[in-house]
């Protein structure tokens, strides 16, 4: 399955606000919940400018909920260096929070 983010950037290339990410995240969550663990979802960043807030709402929340293993089921496609930096920044931060949360829960 592939999600083309440019479909959601209606008026420009900007994917700015958190609420834009919510239906897309629901779509990813549905995929993760209803497919085998070896199936991957491709997230296509072609022709979009996502903000850190958008990426956090889209993927940071999923990582926080499911932990690092969920990343093995996702592939990030057509990412510029700027987008790659945002992804690393957001996901590393959420992985730290996930790790802290689980240490506290133990």
């Amino acid at each position, binding site marked *: 399955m592939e999600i083309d983010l440019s479909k959601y950037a209606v008026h420009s290339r*900007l*994917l*700015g*606000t*958190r*609420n834009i990410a*919510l239906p897309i995240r629901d779509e990813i969550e549905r995929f993760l919940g209803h497919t085998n663990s070896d199936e991957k979802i*491709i997230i296509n960043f072609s022709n979009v*400018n*996502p*903000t*850190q*807030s*958008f990426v*956090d*709402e889209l993927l*940071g*929340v999923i990582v*926080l*909920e499911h932990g*690092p293993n969920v*990343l*093995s089921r*996702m*592939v*990030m*496609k*057509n*990412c*510029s*260096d*700027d987008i*790659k*930096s*945002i*992804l*690393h*920044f*957001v*996901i*590393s*931060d959420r*992985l*730290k*929070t996930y790790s802290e949360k689980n240490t506290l829960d133990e």
Partner: protein
Amino acid sequence: MFFGEILSNAVDHGKKRGFEFCQAHIAAQYYKKTNILVVAIVDNGCGLLETLNSNAAMNSDFTHKKALEIALLPRVSCNRDGEYGLDTKNQSIGLTVSTEMALRACGEFTIFSGNALVRRSFSSANLTFQPLSHWNGVGVILEFDRRCLPDLAKSEIIQNLPGFEEVSLISFE
């Protein structure tokens, strides 16, 4: 990519705090003779102090000046509304990255909110604060020397933020 975060914050924060009709406006002007590009974003929302007044970094100094000061720090200008996402912590890098880009492009930035204004130029190491009559909302003015823009790399600025780490588990195609 430069300003998306500021624009989205401008509207999001205001609407979440009851400023249903708040708007953000953006304007840009290029001055050919001096090669200066100026971009201004202004909103009539709740302002930085309202957004940050529950933030520990305010250190009980509930002034517009203090709010401006901490809004520029990465990971401090937090969105603590909790309306979206599983928790309430936001990494908050939009303002930090945008202002750093202006400084790296031999420019300057000015931010105003409430009764305070802060400014910094690339040639100065310090922030300069000034009082302002009052603006109910936030204004951000970024100046860039166009000749420096091709050398700007947003990715490099993000990679230099505190706590940045590459995640080897992310697959890119």
